């Protein structure tokens, strides 16, 4: 596992305070930059879900995921569940 992804998981495992969300957002940006450097983000990748009734969008371009993590506690929780595999 890459260092960037490990750091992202660590940041997402913290309680979702504004500071923790900002840190997780920064870690996600760093992970994205790494993927771009590897040539894996050439098109317009978008993280999507088939949810309804949630307080987060069902489609977020990967370039905007960090912003959503920083500002939306529910999205922080979704990405935390996805990356860490743990439910709180």
């Amino acid at each position, binding site marked *: 596992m890459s260092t960037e992804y490990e750091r992202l998981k660590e940041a997402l495992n913290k309680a979702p305070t504004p500071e923790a969300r900002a840190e997780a957002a920064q870690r996600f940006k760093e992970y994205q930059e790494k993927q771009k450097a590897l040539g894996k983000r050439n098109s317009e990748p*978008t993280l*999507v879900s088939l949810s309804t009734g949630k307080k987060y969008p069902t489609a977020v371009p990967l370039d905007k995921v960090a912003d959503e993590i920083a500002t939306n506690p529910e999205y922080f929780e979704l990405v935390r569940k*996805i990356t860490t595999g743990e439910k709180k």
Partner: protein
Amino acid sequence: MTVTLALADFDLPTRSASGFLLRHVVPRVGPLPLYSLLDRRLPFTLSTGWSDIIIGMGHGEADAFTGQNMTMLLEVNRYQPQEVKGKVIYLLSCQTGDELGPDTIRKGAISFLGFTDDYVWVMDSDMASTPWSDEMAASCLMPPIDAINALLDGKTTAEAYNVQTAGYIRNAETEEDELIKSLIEFNMRNAVLLGDRRASVRARPKIVTPLPPPPIIIPLTKPKF
């Protein structure tokens, strides 16, 4: 008996998932899928009267499954038991395995396959007109497609579930992007099979079309970014 196949197509996630179903499932289930504008409550209700299996893809939550533009198709305690009685149900949607799935089993469905949390994947927005060729999305969407086709091959629900799990594991092992790998594993963890694990439906002929469908030109609801 026919297949009730309900496919929403109005935003990026439903376009992406419906694309894979149009490419890999629709050719073998008959001429009238409930696709796009037909994916609404009345056609859905009429269709279930003639079907032995319900296959649905659309937005959902714990107690509800929706169709085109999030119109309600199935909601706990707000549908007739005969809509699900005696049927195998597969819902590619978020969280319906939590409450709606168990409710369909209580109301007489033989078996239910679905998911207990959000169904998530990364798609390429640039490929919205030909979503079936999106390799990024395929890693998360092909395991459910393979499971649905296993059901249509006449395999038991347990066998279909195992096909799906094997697909997730195979894709996760070969995926280099850690985020996409996490998404595959997340979806796999949330997959559920309820009811009779030995249930099956009449096998449908395998029809594989050599050419993909024509590009989709239906406009989409764009995300607010």
